[in-house]
């Protein structure tokens, strides 16, 4: 039984613990995900173990809100597995700017973007926002999934693309920041860094779906 979850645009099967979004391009899959059609509506299963945002939703994190018509900046979009679900939710009036530094993964996103007309792929380095600031517009949401040592710095460097009151969703991989420290120590450091400049809405660790990862939801003041 698929019902609306408490997150906009996200549907769930409570019994089987699965998440779904309504397909923007019915009949096609992006990463061989299962498709289910119920009463004429096609749902795409959102794999909780492959997507950090989906894992956050499964853990009940507060603050994840994609609306139809949103402009989303996605740093570290890779092949577009999570991006395709966000594209489902924001619909044809929205746009998702998918930035990745690797041509290997972005090639797949280019083909996905040919079918989904609300995705704009960008081959760029998130550490140099000046190289792409002319290619994007102001966004309602920034999603970041870049596992690097300086991942928080990357987020702050791109914060000026977010509208005031906009939401940021940052996936932190603690082992990328410091492999010798225990994860919870790193999460607390991240928490205090974020609270200095932004409103921290919620954060949760993503176990058991992702080991040593946490998702932070912030709002620009």
């Amino acid at each position, binding site marked *: 039984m698929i019902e609306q979850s408490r997150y906009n645009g996200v549907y769930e099967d409570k019994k089987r613990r699965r998440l779904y979004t309504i397909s923007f391009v019915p009949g096609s899959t992006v990463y061989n995900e299962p498709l289910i059609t119920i009463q004429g509506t096609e749902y795409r299963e959102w794999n909780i173990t492959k997507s950090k945002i989906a894992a956050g939703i499964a853990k009940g994190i507060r603050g994840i809100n994609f609306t139809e*018509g949103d*402009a989303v900046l996605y740093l570290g979009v890779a092949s577009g597995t999570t991006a395709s679900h966000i594209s489902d939710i924001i619909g044809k*009036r*929205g*746009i998702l*700017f998918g930035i990745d530094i690797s*041509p290997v993964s*972005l*090639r797949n996103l*280019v083909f996905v*973007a*040919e079918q989904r*007309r*609300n*995705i*704009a*792929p*960008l*081959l760029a380095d998130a550490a140099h926002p000046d190289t792409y*600031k*002319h*290619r*994007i*517009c*102001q*966004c*309602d949401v920034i999603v970041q999934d870049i596992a690097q040592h300086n991942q928080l710095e990357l987020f702050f460097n791109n914060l*000026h*693309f977010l*509208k005031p009151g906009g939401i940021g969703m940052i996936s932190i991989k603690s082992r990328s920041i410091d*492999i*010798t420290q225990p994860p919870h120590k790193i999460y607390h450091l991240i928490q205090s860094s974020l609270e200095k400049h932004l409103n921290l809405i919620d954060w949760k660790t993503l176990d058991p779906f992702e080991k040593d990862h946490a998702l932070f939801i912030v709002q620009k003041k």
Partner: protein
Amino acid sequence: MTLRILSCGIGCFVFDKDTIVDRILYKLPKDYEQRQHYEKQLQTKYPQAHSSSEIFPKRSEYFEQFREMNNTLTQQTIKASVKKDHLMIAMVHIIEECDRVTNIFGKRLRDMLQIYMPGLEHVHNDLKELSRLIVAEQYVKLKELYPSMMNADISLHDWNVVLNFAEQINSLYKLRETTLANLEQRMMEHTPNLCHVAGAFLGAKLIELAGSVEKLAEMRSTTIQLLGAEKAMFRHLTTKARCPKHGIIINHPLILKNKASLHGKVARHLASALCKAVRIDYFKGDPYVGYQLKEELEKAFT
């Protein structure tokens, strides 16, 4: 009425607070490169407007333009990102896959030969020689050359199954040979010093582990020393395990042929020489420095 001129990838716009008063839309992504020309046009048309460097606001009517422009530009940059490094890394992978597959096929061939011609299988430890013989000699001749009371009598029709299999293994060995020769040739063209110091295969493996020649050239010699030993390095950092002395460069003859107590020292000097070699190659310097570096190493450690 404060007017601002905003330039972005899709065009030049004149804003009055939140409304767009005028605009020039670009047709191709490369029009953005001539943006100063278009900005001047608008500036002369609206002399009281000042230019603004802010980000283009969210306007859904221009999303299609942003999408088109980014799509085209991204595809162009992806095409331009293809380099020679990718081919060399692919060749390393081909050689490694050949080794893996011949190993698996070899076990299967030996299983079959142990049943049908144990006299032959028992004599040859080397798979390459074994498969070469099966393809070169006739079935009857092989039974004569490698006699054994356990050699089975099967028809030529059945022996053909073994023969076909041996032919495939042979062709895999040939593929490995030609790919390695090809790789050596390309390494000599692209990174001659690295090829001299490390050898073609090890040099290409280092490029693979680094990701590209550029990344390898940016690395410190200590990083090059430990490329391939990441597991041991993380273990050392997180537990009380000792620090690894070398990564993939252990396969270099200078390290393999020396006694274990010298491995650390040789690895350190070799890594330092490799670092110099790769940097000279990347910045297109003298292609003969590699000879010198190798000579110095051999003088010190053989």
